[in-house]
């Protein structure tokens, strides 16, 4: 389940969040040169909705662990956009995605790509694009399972 690859640094340290350590400038520069292979899963429940905007909250696990928030916006009957925020220890990551959307009975699924645009703390320099972004929505309960994978630089 947990996959952490330090692609360019060549140092496998397990959970990416632990690599960042303290907020020293030296640490930040070291991390900036690295590429992390993300493989995240999240399980979320709906906290609110407004029209076609669905707000979900849950926990992420995989390469990094932490709370995850997703704001899904159904922009057309077959397309959604999403803002994803993950809060691991020592920072946060924010990504934006766009995905096709399909209803199939009690579930709806989405599949597309995501970019990681910004971060804070240990992930202040995080960026990545073309990450795979997919998931399933339980239409009755509103709960969501999401999967995010791909490479991210920090």
């Amino acid at each position: 389940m947990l996959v952490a690859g330090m692609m360019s640094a060549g140092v496998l340290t397990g959970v990416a969040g632990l690599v960042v350590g303290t907020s020293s400038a030296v640490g930040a520069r070291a991390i900036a040169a690295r590429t992390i292979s993300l493989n995240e899963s999240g399980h979320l429940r709906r906290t609110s909705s407004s029209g076609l905007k669905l707000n979900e909250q849950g926990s992420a696990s995989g390469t990094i662990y932490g709370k995850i928030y997703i704001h899904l916006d159904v922009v057309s009957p077959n397309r959604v956009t999403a803002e994803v925020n993950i809060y691991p220890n020592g920072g946060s990551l924010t990504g934006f995605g766009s995905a096709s959307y399909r209803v199939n009975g009690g579930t709806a699924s989405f599949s597309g790509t995501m970019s990681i645009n910004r971060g804070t703390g240990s992930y202040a320099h995080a960026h990545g694009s073309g990450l795979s972004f997919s998931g399933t929505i339980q239409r009755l309960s509103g709960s969501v399972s999401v999967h995010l994978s791909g490479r991210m630089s920090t």
Partner: protein
Amino acid sequence: MSRIRAVTAALFVCCCLPATAGAAQTVTLHTSFSPDRLGASTTIGFGFQITNPNGSLPAPLTSLSLHLPAGIDYVTTTLGLAICQPANLLARGLGGCSPNSRLGYGSAFVEVPFGQGSGHEIPEIQALMGPPHNGNIVVLFYANGQEPVYAQLVFQGELVSGSNALGGDLNAAIPLIPSVPGGAPVSIVSVESTIGPSHLTYYKHVHGKKVAFHPKGVSVPLSCPREGFTFSATFGFSDGTSAVANSVVPCPPRRR
């Protein structure tokens, strides 16, 4: 007794005839929201009447494309939580599909090409969620006619989104309904139907118990255009003609 069992495999995508082609049939369309309140979960009512201005029987209807107003939200509804397989529907009727696949219901009046003057009701038309096609929602229409028109048939409409805005088109190809075995098809003269939770009961399991609930319907847009919510429909007929009809649901009164 003959029973018609037909499934249309091909989906009608668009009416290729110009809207002005021919004038053999005229159609009136009427639509409604219930409740009629901005942003509310609602049931869409729609119906149409087909007449032939020269007084003769209308040509059989072969296609229908219903254009929904922009902003109608049928994405976050909980209608259609189960998929109904057309084969099960044909084999076992409504009992072949989960109650959670039901989307609406209605009725139709048809006339046979002999003994004109007395319409015959097909009292039961059910709308159900079918297997998606090309990622689009598919609505199955199940007509269960008894005497004098024995017709049990399933045809399907595909909900195609036109642009980024919500709304879209429900496109359906309608099979011909023989009046008698091998006989000329009947003419549909009127249809009334709903899409929405009104009079529908769904079921879910809570702590091992089956609990009834009402699904959330499609949502009326949060704002209303000045002219109201405009539906339009294009009807195709077996004689090659087509007709277009519009219907406007006026903006609901402002709430105080």
